[in-house]
């Protein structure tokens, strides 16, 4: 009985390792949408949704910081930066807020299950000429710990990863 149990556990372990390796290969082999060494982040737009100014600014600042920290780009330019015009293989990130629910930090801390803050943002990556290279909807949320503005950090991390995976060649490939 013990031997059979060991065999079952070993089988599951091997299967997990095989699945991980296969997933890693798929990720590593995924082609880039376009190679870019610089990115310009435009100010977050929220024409359809009434977004408080502090959330708009926090989304923008977190996005810039995360792209600088983990995006892998040589240069991250801000909205209106004159130097971006001279940058070779530049991509431009347009972000539009499509949904916003301001939760309550107090409700989260008191009840744990309610008071979630959530922001839905449509991200569009274009080249210098405005040709769309990639579009995707991303979500930022804070469910348990932290203030409402932490949702913008969550979104920024996802957006930086999306940009890195699709426009920056990883050392493995």
């Amino acid at each position, binding site marked *: 009985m013990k031997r059979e149990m060991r065999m079952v556990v070993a089988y599951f372990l091997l299967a997990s390792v095989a699945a991980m390796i296969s997933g890693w290969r798929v990720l590593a082999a995924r082609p880039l949408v376009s190679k870019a060494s610089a990115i310009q982040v435009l100010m977050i737009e929220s024409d359809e949704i009434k977004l408080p100014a502090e959330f708009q600014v926090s989304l923008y600042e977190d996005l810039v910081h995360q792209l600088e920290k983990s995006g892998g780009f040589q240069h991250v330019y801000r909205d*209106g930066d004159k130097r971006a015009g001279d940058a070779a293989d530049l991509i431009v990130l347009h972000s539009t807020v499509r949904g916003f629910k301001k939760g309550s930090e*107090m409700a989260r801390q008191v009840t744990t299950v309610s008071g979630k803050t959530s922001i839905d943002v449509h991200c569009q990556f274009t080249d210098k000429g405005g040709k769309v290279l990639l579009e995707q909807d991303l979500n930022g949320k804070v469910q348990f710990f932290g203030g409402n503005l932490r949702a913008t950090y969550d979104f920024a991390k996802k957006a930086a990863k999306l940009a890195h995976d699709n426009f920056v060649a990883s050392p493995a490939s």
Partner: protein
Amino acid sequence: MTGKSWKMLIGISLLQLGLALASAAQQAAPETAGDLKVVQLTGLTGVKNHTKGTVKVADGNLQFTHAQAKTEVAIATIEDVVTGNDSQRAVHGFVGTLTMFAPYGGGRFLSLFRTKLDTLTLQYRDADGGLHGAIFTMSVGQADPLKKLLVAQGARTSLPTPDAPAGADGKPSATKEQKP
């Protein structure tokens, strides 16, 4: 009147006095550009997020001073200044985090006690034209006077206050648009 009634009367009076003092302290807003205690949540170049310090308006700049250094934003470069409000736990920071592990839901109970805050959000341009955003939190009643001061010295706002200085055309000066 019995001794018990006197005690009750004094108790109620003390409670009312305490409430009145607390309310007055909350509503006391500085009229001048003295140093205001603030927390810089994000956005100032070279300053870490959630840095405590003071701000003041001097020499055409918004000056943020904290333990290590002073950071300035030229008021003429401010494209938008907006106020808002928020709240935080009365017991916050590291101690606040520790209280979350208090037994019998003590941390949750403490979360019910909150202090109101004002927020001041700025958008400004650097020397290369790059857009920056900065968010400050401060005590209730301090953000609006600071915003008025900034607008009076040339900062622009997308949400003008009712008594903002009027331009020649009767509209509030240096405003971009009136948001709904």
